[in-house]
């Protein structure tokens, strides 16, 4: 089999109506396999056998959910994140992993690690900030075309095939979580089909933001920022399980929030974020100024 015909097959898979059936098969295959150059033999819709390397299958999984399906959410899940501010030392691995996964340039990341200082006398701390995936999302309220929407699993996604680029959601978000593709993004011409669940490729003139990596969640895998954090700062889980994990440690969500006085940023706005913070007390690391990053406020 030539590379071309495999590509062709993959493209058919990702775009065609055979998606639902073959998607399930691929899904179960992918979840039990390690990334290697193993090859699998698959049956195409027109009855031919093709050999596909597993890395290509994984690349396909990333874009397996078409926009209409991506509106519904993963059944029986309510995703939630807890960020332990006592553990963050601004290693920025979450940003790097996110940028890589979403093909972002370093000047406009989805995740930001902010230097915070609550008042004159209190100590500064690092605050990793993503989209808060609010349960009362101001951005979704104002969207004129439903290009950004709230799913049953709590995630707020952007469909950049519908976004008209009015940027009202950016004005409405009190947490500055959204970024805009002002010019042509580097990945716009990538030969992959778009899904709101992967947010790639980006499109000029549309809005993007942190999406909690639903493509990973569909495989019961943690988002990239969680797994890539060297200090276990970010806990992630299904609220309906009452359990969160940072990849190493698994804890009851309710116990964690109770014991460590978890809070949500700017509760008073009534946006009901799905991201909780644990106060920066009993720090693991001393605060060190970021020497590389330019500092403005």
């Amino acid at each position, binding site marked *: 089999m030539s590379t071309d015909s495999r590509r062709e097959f993959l493209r058919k898979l990702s775009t065609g109506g055979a998606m639902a059936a073959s998607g399930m098969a691929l899904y179960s295959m992918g979840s039990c396999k390690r990334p290697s150059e193993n090859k699998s033999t698959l049956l195409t819709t027109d009855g031919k056998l093709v050999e596909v390397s597993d890395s290509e299958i994984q690349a396909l999984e990333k874009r397996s959910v078409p926009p209409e399906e991506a509106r519904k959410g993963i059944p029986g899940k309510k995703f939630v994140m807890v960020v332990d501010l006592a553990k963050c030392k601004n290693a920025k691995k979450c940003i790097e992993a996110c940028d890589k996964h979403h093909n972002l340039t370093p000047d406009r990341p989805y995740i930001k690690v902010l230097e915070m200082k609550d008042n004159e006398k209190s100590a500064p701390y690092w605050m990793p900030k993503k989209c808060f995936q609010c349960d009362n999302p101001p951005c979704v*309220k104002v969207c004129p*075309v439903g290009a950004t929407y709230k799913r049953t699993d709590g995630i707020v996604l952007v469909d950049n095939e519908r976004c008209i680029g*009015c940027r009202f959601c950016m004005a409405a978000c009190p947490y500055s979580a959204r970024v805009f593709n*002002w010019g042509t993004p580097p990945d716009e011409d990538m030969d992959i089909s778009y899904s709101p669940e992967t947010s790639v490729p980006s499109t000029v003139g549309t809005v993007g933001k942190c999406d909690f990596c639903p493509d990973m969640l569909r495989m019961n895998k943690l988002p990239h920022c969680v797994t890539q954090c060297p200090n276990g700062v970010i806990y992630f889980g299904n609220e309906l399980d009452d359990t969160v994990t940072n990849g190493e440690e698994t804890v009851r969500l309710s116990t964690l929030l109770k014991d460590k006085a978890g809070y949500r940023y700017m509760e008073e706005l009534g946006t009901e974020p799905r991201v909780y913070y644990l106060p920066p007390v009993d720090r693991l690391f001393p605060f060190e100024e970021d020497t590389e990053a330019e500092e403005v406020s």
Partner: protein
Amino acid sequence: MKDLQVKGQKFGTRREKDVLRHLVTTTTSYKLWIGVLLFFIILGLIGYYRQLKFGLIVTAMRDYTSWGIYISNFVFFVAISLVGSLFSSILRLNKNQWARPLIRVSEMIAVAAIICAAVIIIVDMGRPDRFFYVIKYLRIQSPIIWDVIIISTYLVISILLLFVSILPDIAFCRDNLTILPRWKKRLYHLLAINWDYQPRQQAILQKISKILAISVLPVAFAIHTITSWLFATTWRPGWDSTNLGPYFVSGAFMSGAAVIIVAMYFIRKHLNLKPYITDIHFDRMGKLLVLLSLVYLYFNINEYLGPSFKMVGVEGEHITELFVGKYAPMYWFVQLGGLILPIVLLVFKKLRKPLPMMIVSVFVILGAWFKRYLIVIPSLQHPYLPIQGVDESYLHYYPTWEEWAITISSFAWFLLIVTLLIKLFPVIPIHKESATTDKKETKAGDKKIAYPALIIFCFLSFSIPNMQIANAQEVLQDAQISLDFRETEHTKNIIATVRDSANMPVEELDLYFYVKRTFSLLPIGDFFNTTDEAGVVEIEFPQDLPGDEQGNVTILVKILESDIYNDQTVETVKNWGVPTALDVTYEKRSLWAAAANAPLPLVIITTSLIMAMWLLIFYIFYLLIKIRRMTTQKTKRVPKLKSV
């Protein structure tokens, strides 16, 4: 009689000649003026071509300052368009006869401004190619949708208002202007909809203009109030205000009046209409401007006093920036030059003369434009979370030449539309008393100026919106775990028994108990769960742990990394969890729900308002068609252009 002729066109009266002269003659200064406007329009088109090609990257807007001068310019034009309603509704309903010569020019300005506003909002879109998604995927919950609906409604009403007021004069032009080019004659013939001065036609026209005069008022208030809601429905400092609606509306009336004064000045000068737009008109417009400025001043004080007294967080930063910071020069120019100055100067009768008033009005218009700049841009630069870790270009906003070119060309478009309307149609009614009984051109007119201001004030006071709103090693042995479950009223215990391959109890072995969760295994039991001499370990299952919909939980018991035994797992499903209720909030009607789940009151209110307004508009169309059909009984007036 010779002086009633212009280039072979005969006029019946002096007034006809004065009012219609510019329709039949074209001056060099007019051509030059159109040339200048076209130059700026082309410059703007080049800018917009570049924006279409490269995206909004050609602007200075970035993720923080995500709205720029396009939006402030949009707000500006919406504001200007309100002036049509001021004259053709508020002043007319109050029988301010003095204002009648100004009605048409105000309506022409309103039509031009609302067209420009509608176009600018498309220019600001990242994906103008998806404009019709606004209709295809319409979400009634979004204030943008409200704005789109109200702008299109107001556009139609403005055009109707203008049309109804010039209809008899179009017919007059059709019948009496003989030296026009063919296309113009055809245009008049078409637009005159068979008007032949029948009393029945006149009665219908009276009716239409009365309906329009009343209906335009709520629409005009709505258009700018809804535009203010684009800002007031967010948490941005300076926008998160319940005062914003009336603040915008009052500012709109003030800037609109200033635009009228400037228009009056130039029309009077270039069309030689001094006998019709007199110093008295300027005097009264001056008083009106002072009154409207005072109303706007009142809402300005309301807008800034509260936040500057409290100085809360980012709101305080924003106020500081405006009062004494980066934006202070612009802020004080706007407040002093564009608001205080007209009040202070125009209270003097001596200054209520054409030239000084025109200059003051230019300041008011500049102030009004920069005011909208100050409303849109600084607010976006004070988010709740600090701006860090972004490209340097994201930190400030200096509009690029493309933005300026497009903005300036929007002014050129505006002026071009106004100019062409004036060139095609008489600005001043041809017959002084053709419409209503305006026999009493009262001296009490002065006092009447107070009424419109009072109405605006009352309306605004009432309309303040309340928004808020494993790895195995061969040396290791196998062990077997068997599970028992004991349930009492208050406790649920898991009892695990470990036996080796010889079926002997295993002592001193650590077991690990887990519950399966979405991403990982949640440890339960104590920190160490070590078997006793009987090979038994008992742990308590947590009481309140969620299970699936039926309350099932998957319990795992493991031997891990033991020195003697292989790793092993036993797994069992137990109905010990708390059943999880399926989330139904997604199906509920809410502001953030999908279009199909919009809140019912919102759907009912918006739909009925739109229906009411558009029924009225269709009714007016019906009446206009009725006028057109009344042509069968020929009156003595035979149109001179019957051949056309």
